[in-house]
């Protein structure tokens, strides 16, 4: 187990390092460079030269990268061009909100997807299975913003029970005081995840049902229902943790769209607004933080998985 941890940690560090390189290159390797992107096509050569001088873009790339890393280590992600605030303080306000949205949506999704997948596996080849399979594929095939739009039209316009806009306050408390505004964003995000996870649960359950230990449990006189609950569920759920880790990037992508859609003041909305206004320090800061969050998140899920699965836990 410790060997596994050390190895996995070192891997994560290497990946983190590579993530910083990718983010750095994103800004520098693109045609025209940051100056052209920020000043626009109308920027005069003098303006560009001045901008590059001030921002340190005239130094050789490795030097710039080194400076970038040093700044990162000091927690300095730069200043927003547009918002007159440091990127780190912006992220400090916005990141928790995105995490709340993502975590809530994931909890809802897992709570729905697991029983749904089990049901499909047990009813394999029956109409319920086909219906749910088709449903899951269609939900997966629907762009998140179209899904959100349908929900808004139905639950906010046709039957006005939920607001179409998320709660706006800057504090975390505002989310929970105006929670009805969270229903549609969470539902939108959760639907896509449900589609993926229920498919996983279905096939994992089916795989486990063909395992011989199920036959052993039957040979003990265990009922089908309890075999599912006591034996199969556990074995199918443990790998779901890894799946969560793998889907983290997809979850963040989903949050970006949902936040923009429902005007939810999280990191995704910040990022979207920054993209509209070419606010590069914010764009890259958010990208980096999301990348780091993904690496750390998948590291955590791997460790949780190792703890949950006795086969890995006890290999010392």
């Amino acid at each position, binding site marked *: 187990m410790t060997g596994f941890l050390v190895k996995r940690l070192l891997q994560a560090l290497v990946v983190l390092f590579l993530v910083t390189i990718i983010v750095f290159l994103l800004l520098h390797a693109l045609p025209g460079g940051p100056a052209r992107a920020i000043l626009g096509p109308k920027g005069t050569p003098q303006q560009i030269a001045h901008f590059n001088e001030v921002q340190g873009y005239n130094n050789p790339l490795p030097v710039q990268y080194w400076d970038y890393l040093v700044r990162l280590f000091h927690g300095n992600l730069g200043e927003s061009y547009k918002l007159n605030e440091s990127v780190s303080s912006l992220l400090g306000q916005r990141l928790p909100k995105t995490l709340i949205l993502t975590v809530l949506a994931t909890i809802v999704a897992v709570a729905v997807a697991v029983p749904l997948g089990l049901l499909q596996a047990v009813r394999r080849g029956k109409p319920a299975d086909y219906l749910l399979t088709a449903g899951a594929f269609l939900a997966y095939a629907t762009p998140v*913003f179209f899904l959100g739009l349908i929900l*808004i039209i139905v639950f906010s316009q046709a039957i006005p029970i939920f607001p179409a806009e998320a709660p706006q306050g800057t504090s975390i408390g505002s989310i929970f005081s105006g929670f009805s505004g969270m229903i549609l964003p969470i539902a939108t995000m959760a639907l896509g995840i449900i589609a993926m996870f229920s498919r996983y649960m279905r096939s994992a359950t089916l795989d486990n049902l063909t395992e011989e230990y199920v036959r052993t449990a039957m040979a003990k006189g265990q009922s089908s229902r309890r075999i599912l609950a006591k034996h199969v569920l556990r074995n199918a759920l443990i790998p779901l943790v890894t799946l969560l880790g793998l889907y983290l990037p997809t979850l963040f992508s989903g949050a970006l769209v949902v936040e*923009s859609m429902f005007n939810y003041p999280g990191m995704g909305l910040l990022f979207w607004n920054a993209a509209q206004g070419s606010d590069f320090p914010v764009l890259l800061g958010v990208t980096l933080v999301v990348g*780091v969050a993904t690496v750390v998140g998948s590291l955590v899920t791997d460790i949780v998985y190792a703890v949950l699965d006795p086969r890995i836990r006890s290999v010392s």
Partner: protein
Amino acid sequence: MSVISPAVAPGHEEAAQATPSLARRTVQVFTRNKLALAGVVVLVLLLLFCYVGPLVHPTDQVHTDLSQASLAPGAPGHLLGTTDLGYDLVGRLMVAGQSSLEVGLAAGVLATLFGTVWGAVSGYFGGWVDAVMMRVTDAALAIPAMFLLVVVSAIITPSKTILILIIAAVAWLSPARLVRGEALSLRDREYVQAMRMMGGGGARAVFRHIVPNAIGTVIVNATFQVADAILYVSYLAFLGLSIPPPATDWGSMLSSGITYTQNGYWWMIFPAGIAIVLVVGAFNFIGDGLRDAFEVRLQKK
């Protein structure tokens, strides 16, 4: 009621019998899958609609005509009404579908090709080559695709070609991982060992044994890649980063329709949205059917 029955099959398959050829069996299994067949039918219909449709129903999709803007469905000559700029909606759907399908197909195929090569090389060589190549893949995967797409398209103004390139640039990662895993396991198969023992080399291993045996995985993955690429196009459009007008795609149609949600102009939203769902769903159904077909083919003793 017993919903569970042990599926541990005994050796009653031993008796050898003539079986149909592999290809026929694959087709058989695929055609038994009703959802997959539905996928094929939907895809063919959509292709006909987008490419043959404009011949049957020619419309002007270049010049705006504000006098004809936002007509409701059923208006004379406009079966599904018109857009906010006065384009005939049916015709617009056809043109938009062409871009969506072309970009999706091209990006999906490109991503699959590149990812397959990357994964095969990484998996076959193993060791440090593999470690380095896979860490690069991990790092690129760590940055969610949408964020990468947004940053890149915030810097570059997209054209169709650029759209294809940037979508492929984020989409190649998953086939790379998949094929790498496949190559890793195929490399150690006994039939590859047997071939090495006859004096065969690496090239033969890769091209005669590994690639043909991984091809199922690759084809299946390609269909999912195309589906995902079409979704990416629509997301980019939603984030305001798609090909500039008068060209359009289904995603752009849908997101420009969102502005009119309050006005009840449903025809500017649903036809395009449903088209996306249909085409992406069709590719997914086809991919799923193919996967079953290829798997049965390998599992069959």
